[in-house]
């Protein structure tokens, strides 16, 4: 039914518009686009009121060709909200997860709105992945320029490299605002309604939003996605003043570079900041509650990472200890960190440092969402969901029409995981059964060199193999054998493959080395698509490239099956 509406509008203009991607080039492109946009996204279409006047009265200001194609795609299913609803989909939270979901929803023809309570782009763009990459880009170069040994080996001479802190900070800030405006524009261009204010769920298909001090507006939606993300987690006893004791939120502004900074927590965030701070001249002390640094990484990778990223740098560490109390610097005293043994709780030591960065993870931001209105109780703040990201209520029943993606559900707290979950939800509500395989989602830590991983770690794989009764094997290759890495004089690194020799299934890949974050996708795609080692090993890699590290890795795996997928069928005995 809605499709015919769209046709009636666009036919008089250009009957071929929908299937012709070059439409933007035609003189009437802009006009047609705007018409289509109304069809797709405005609810007036539904009632067929004043359609023509509205359509012709507004010309889309977005000239991008890609855009017109997307809009056309949207028009294919011509989403108009189901009768009786303001929107097909309302997304609460405009971070990377909400953005990914919104874009895909438009593509699926859903009339979509996104509610942003803070700032478009959320944590990733404004206080996370994005600005930190800017700082890491600087730290990587500083590190190279300071490595006299390395430069000498390449025949380079560089005199006293230095940096200007404010310019570095500006670079990070500018990058964030640029990406933020890109994100905003991409949604506006597609006609996603951006509603400003704090979104609260009133009922299963009702959401209200509004700025503090202003009356709330209530909208109805066929489906709701919660994508409110997370905030830095600060354990009790730690007093954050934003100056000498701070979280990643403050650290990314790079307001100063302390001589000596303690980083509490040695996960991704802590590790990346240690890379930034040591390159800029700080000394770093890690405080880690577990017995090993870098918990969560494959142990072998963590060990090698310690050799490459920790031991040779101006870093020391305390493991197996909690920071029980952290007092910011004041009254001419440094920052004081009281450490207690993680197991016995005995006091162990007191550190006196210039600053402390709290990188103990992130806590879901689900307060004020109105979850009580739909009988949902959070688990440690996380919204419980099933494999389709559909929210479960306090009694374990699925709540109809409400989904939760990203950090707020805690399944995998990564920006791209949130986005993937959002796309999966949109598929689901569009009628395509879709379950996201979280084991195919890669993760990366942008130290120098980088660390990346996908799937299971070796201990996880061993546990699974014992439980399910199959054999696993591990293959490894070194960056030392890679021509491109040696040309860069960056031979340090390891790629590790965990696989099933009986089927050739890839269970996990872990890489530590130059551009590891970019290299991981061959493996994550293989896992996502179910490609087996016996097949992928015949894929050709350009020479000489770093990707040959993975080529070698796949080739070195010993799979007990033939190359043809048909041969891998189990033989009945």
């Amino acid at each position, binding site marked *: 039914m809605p499709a015919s509406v769209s046709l009636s509008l666009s036919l008089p203009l250009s009957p071929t518009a929908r299937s012709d991607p070059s439409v933007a080039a035609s003189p009437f492109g802009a006009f047609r686009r705007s018409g289509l946009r109304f069809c797709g996204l405005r609810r007036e279409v539904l009632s067929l009121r004043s359609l023509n006047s509205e359509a012709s009265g507004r010309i889309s200001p977005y000239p991008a060709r890609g855009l017109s194609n997307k809009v056309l795609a949207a028009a294919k299913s011509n989403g108009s909200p189901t009768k009786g609803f303001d929107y097909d989909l309302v997304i609460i939270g405009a971070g990377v997860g909400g953005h990914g979901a919104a874009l895909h929803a438009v593509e699926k023809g859903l009339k979509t709105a996104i509610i942003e309570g803070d700032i478009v782009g959320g944590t990733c763009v404004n206080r996370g992945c994005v600005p930190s990459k800017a700082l890491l880009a600087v730290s990587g170069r*500083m590190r190279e320029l*300071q490595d*006299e040994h390395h430069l000498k080996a390449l025949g380079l001479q560089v*005199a*006293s*490299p*230095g*940096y*200007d*802190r404010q310019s570095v900070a500006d670079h990070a800030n500018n990058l964030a605002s640029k990406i933020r405006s890109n994100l905003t524009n991409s949604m506006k261009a597609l006609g996603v309604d951006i509603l400003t204010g704090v979104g609260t769920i009133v009922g299963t298909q009702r959401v209200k939003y509004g700025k503090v001090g202003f009356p709330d507006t209530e909208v109805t939606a066929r489906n709701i996605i919660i994508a409110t993300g997370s905030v830095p987690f600060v354990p009790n006893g730690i007093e954050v003043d934003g100056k000498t004791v701070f979280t990643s939120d403050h650290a990314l502004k790079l307001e100063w*570079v302390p*001589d*000596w900074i303690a980083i509490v927590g040695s996960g991704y965030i802590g590790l990346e900041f240690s890379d930034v701070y040591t*390159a*800029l*001249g700080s*000394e*770093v*002390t890690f405080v880690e509650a577990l017995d090993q640094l870098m918990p969560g990484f494959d142990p*072998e990778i963590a*060990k*090698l990472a310690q*050799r490459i990223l920790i031991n040779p740098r*101006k*870093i*020391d560490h305390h493991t197996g200890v909690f920071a029980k109390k952290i007092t910011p610097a004041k009254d001419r*005293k*440094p920052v004081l960190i009281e450490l207690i043994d993680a197991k016995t709780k005995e006091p162990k030591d*007191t550190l*006196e440092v*210039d600053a402390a960065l709290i990188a103990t993870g992130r806590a879901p931001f689900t307060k004020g969402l109105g979850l009580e209105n739909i009988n949902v109780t959070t688990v440690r703040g996380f919204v419980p969901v099933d494999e389709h990201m559909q929210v479960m209520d306090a009694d374990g029943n699925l709540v109809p029409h409400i989904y939760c993606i990203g950090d707020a559900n805690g399944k995998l707290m990564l920006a791209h995981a949130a986005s993937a979950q959002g796309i999966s939800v949109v598929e689901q509500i569009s009628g395509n059964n879709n379950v996201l395989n979280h084991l195919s989602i890669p993760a990366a830590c942008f130290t120098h060199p980088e660390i990346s991983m996908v799937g299971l770690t070796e201990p996880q794989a061993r546990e699974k193999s014992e439980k399910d009764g199959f054999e696993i094997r591990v293959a490894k290759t070194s960056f030392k054998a890679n021509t491109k890495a040696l040309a860069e004089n960056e031979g340090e690194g390891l790629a590790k493959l965990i696989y099933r020799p009986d089927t050739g299934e890839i269970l996990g890949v872990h890489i530590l080395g130059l551009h590891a974050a970019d290299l991981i996708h061959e493996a994550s795609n293989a896992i996502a698509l179910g490609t087996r080692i016996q097949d992928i090993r015949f894929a050709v890699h350009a020479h000489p490239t770093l990707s040959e590290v993975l080529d070698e890795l796949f080739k070195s795996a010993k799979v007990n099956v033939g190359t043809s997928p048909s041969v891998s069928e189990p033989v009945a005995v």
Partner: protein
Amino acid sequence: MAASPSTTSVAGAGPLLSFSSSLSSPSRRVLLPLVRRSSGGAGRRAARIPAISAKIREIFMPALSSTMTEGKIVSWVKSEGDRLSKGESVVVVESDKADMDVETFYDGILAAIVVPAGESAPVGAPIGLLAETEDEVPLAKAQAQSQSQSQPAPVTQSPPSPPSVAAPSPPPPPPAPVATPVAVSEGPRKIVATPFAKKLAKQHKVDIGTVVGTGPYGRITPSDIEAAVGIQPKVPVSSPSPAVTPVPQSPAPSADTSAKAPAAALPPIPGSTVVPFTTMQAAVSKNMVESLSVPTFRVGYPVTTNALDALYEKVKPKGVTMTVLLAKAAAMALAKHPVVNASCKDGKSFTYNESINIAVAVAIDGGLITPVLQDADKLDIYLLSQRWKDLLKKSRAKQLQPNEYSSGTFTVSNLGMFGVDRFDAILPPGQGAIMAVGASKPTVVADADGFFSVKSKMLVNVTADHRIIYGADLAAFLQTFAKIVEDPESLTL
């Protein structure tokens, strides 16, 4: 075979304990696969020990890198009793750089594990025993046992490895002027050292407890350790401190510019850096050398300051500083003793100055300047304070006009605020006298009747040109000065 530099005869009953002493030069060895025969090479065995068939080989800790002195057993791939064939991985060893699989060159049975997983052993120490046949397994086991008893060292966590501190750092310069005015810390003060300082201390084998920290909050910094070892502080190159001004000028005046320095005769002390004088510093230097041509002498005088202190408290809210009060007092005393305000220009005559201009020494960043309070005897302390404030502002901004710093007829230098109780000033050229003021501090004094009381006393010390000012002149001047200070009401008139 290629990989066995030393062989030990273990066969037979007796020499079971000889393993520990068999390491001639293990570190030379680079080859990984390492099993050392303990009963002679395959070929030689027949020739040398024909009667004995027992063959037990040691698996020992390989040197996986040139800097490795000890290794940690990550895991044993094989367990005791496993049959090994040539080329198989037996054990995973962790060095300072990497984890490596160590393979065997020989077939045999892993008879005994001497160093279990998780423990460390020095390079070359036996970590396991390989028996050629089942029969030798018990023998090897016995051997392993006696070995671990007789030589527990390699089994401990961190054996006292020989002092072969890797080689990454350049050899420290010769006469390491060992830094150690034994830790000044009173009581059990906690030692705080930065991560890199600790690393350096370990690398250079410095006992961190003996180093005195000079960093913020008394912490030990990398440069403290470097100083303790006698290493030249790294040239600014690698210290990426907020390089606001990336050192302009010629390629860093390093040690050998000493040719220009006057004290060229002295051999340069390693680690010293030469920084040329600024214009101001050059001027100070010139004046100080010139002052040597003037015969000076010094007279000190204790002054009670209780009254002055009380006055100061009263006028402080009006912006009057102690410096101004002292300058005013000196000016008033000078008015009564014009000779002390005079100067000797040519060595033949007195030059009596009409005005009394008090120069006050002020330390500014990297230098010293003497702004002048002109006509200090005539102006009141409030006006002087106003002037003084302006002068200070100009000094800091380096905007003093020549007549504002060179027209002094008498100088006051006060180090009392630092707790200095007395000091000796050098007479600036062109003036007759300079007064050095120490700190005022409570002192027990006895009066003529033998009553004790506590008074604040301050020592002033005047340096004067003896060509024109004699001892009695100075004494009289100081007496007047003391009277004014002890009864300071006149200062406010």
